[in-house]
């Protein structure tokens, strides 16, 4: 099976990640931060080393700012529901995933939606700036659309937030590990990550890096410290880590970062070449509908949505599946992005390569789309 559904989770995991997970289950099968025995402390040290590695990789101030969650959506929920209250004003983009929009709806925040321009990032920044009011408490947006791949000018938006004293949170599910992200350089206060995507880690783990205090908790429970108190501890990361951590996935993330640094440093450029080639070929096919004006390095992630005219996206994906290609069709949990693209009624077929994808696989995809009946 050729896997082009890597925006959902990278389909092929590196051997070194699988070995790290296996070794964690064999050698680090103790609860970190709970017991005082050597095995528990060894596990805690391994978890701490991963926090250090993550902080370093994403330009965070220190390992204690790195919170492990059960997935990226949980990380986003922690930030939005901890930092914002009912009626608070927040600015976001028109390309957001439901992981952002649903919590904002639940909170009852006053949401202003900035327009992302597909060809001119300065216009995107202008749109955000116009929607930053005196009482705007937070800007929270995706780093890149999971539907069309458009990258947002995060550094410029972060700069504006800093200037105006507004907290800035970023959903980096699609971008973390694939393209560079530096919290300090980009003035990001809260970064939410899905290690099972661009870092090639196992599913079942999210990461939240919080440079500002988040505020209230939405999950309370045992943290291994201050046990006689009925109140949640104040200190990060344990305040937001009640319950047992997913140590195998954490160790897989550690190995995933090593993998990206050692082998996949150039993954963005390699994957982008594949998407560019696909875009150029699809553009020549009269019955293919593309939704972005072009793909350009530094402006788009290697993710591409399309449809075959008159064919439901699910039917196209089913055809691809029968031909041995995995691609995701439908709304990709991002109805706002689809409204923006004009595909809310049809959805799209999304192609997302990974480091392991090849030009031969793209050639095969092009070939079977050419003969679609």
């Amino acid at each position, binding site marked *: 099976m050729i896997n082009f559904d890597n925006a959902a989770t990278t389909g092929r995991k590196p051997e070194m990640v699988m070995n790290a997970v296996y070794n964690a289950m064999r050698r680090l099968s103790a609860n970190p931060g709970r017991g005082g025995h050597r095995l528990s402390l060894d596990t*805690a040290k391994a978890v701490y080393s991963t926090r250090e590695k993550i902080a370093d990789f994403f330009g965070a101030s220190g390992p204690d700012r790195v919170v492990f969650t059960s997935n990226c959506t949980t990380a986003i929920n922690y930030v939005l529901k901890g930092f914002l209250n009912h009626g608070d004003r927040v600015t976001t983009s028109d390309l957001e995933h439901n992981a952002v929009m649903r919590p904002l709806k639940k909170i009852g925040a006053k949401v202003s939606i900035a327009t992302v321009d597909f060809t001119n990032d300065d216009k995107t920044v202008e749109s955000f700036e116009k929607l930053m009011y005196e009482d705007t408490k937070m800007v929270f947006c995706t780093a890149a659309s999971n539907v069309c791949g458009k990258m947002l000018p995060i550094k410029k938006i972060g700069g504006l937030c800093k200037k105006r004293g507004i907290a800035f949170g970023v959903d980096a599910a699609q971008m973390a590990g694939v393209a560079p992200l530096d919290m300090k350089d980009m003035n990001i206060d809260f970064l939410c990550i899905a290690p099972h995507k661009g870092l090639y880690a196992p599913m079942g783990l999210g990461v939240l890096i919080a440079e500002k205090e988040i505020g209230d908790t939405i999950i309370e429970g045992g943290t291994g410290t*201050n046990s006689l*108190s009925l109140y949640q*501890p104040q200190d990060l990361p344990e305040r937001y880590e009640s319950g047992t951590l997913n140590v195998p996935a954490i160790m897989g993330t550690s190995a995933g970062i090593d993998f990206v640094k050692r082998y996949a440093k150039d993954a963005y450029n390699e994957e982008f070449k594949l998407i560019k080639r696909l875009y150029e070929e699809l553009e020549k096919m009269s019955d293919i509908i593309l939704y972005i004006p072009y793909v350009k390095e530094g402006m788009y992630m290697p993710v591409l949505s399309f449809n075959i005219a008159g064919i439901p996206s699910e039917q196209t994906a089913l055809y691809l599946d029968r031909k041995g290609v995995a691609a995701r069709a439908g709304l990709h949990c991002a109805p706002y992005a689809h409204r923006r693209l004009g595909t809310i009624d049809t959805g799209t077929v999304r192609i997302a390569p990974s480091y392991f994808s090849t030009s031969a696989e793209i050639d095969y995809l092009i070939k079977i789309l050419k003969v679609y009946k």
Partner: protein
Amino acid sequence: MREYMITLPSVTYALKGRDILRRLGFKARIERKSRQSGTGCGYGIVTEGDIYKAEQALKNASIKILEIADY
């Protein structure tokens, strides 16, 4: 040499503190403290030497110290 236990809010801070002290040349190891100051479980760094210097180094790194006691 006289040993001290510096009790910290969590294992994360204990490990962070341990690394800071080691970088400054202190001997430092982590130990579980089963009942710290009547609040429940916690972790501490066992160290020796100039405890005031150690305390200051941790405070400079914004590490909250819950207690320092003879070990």
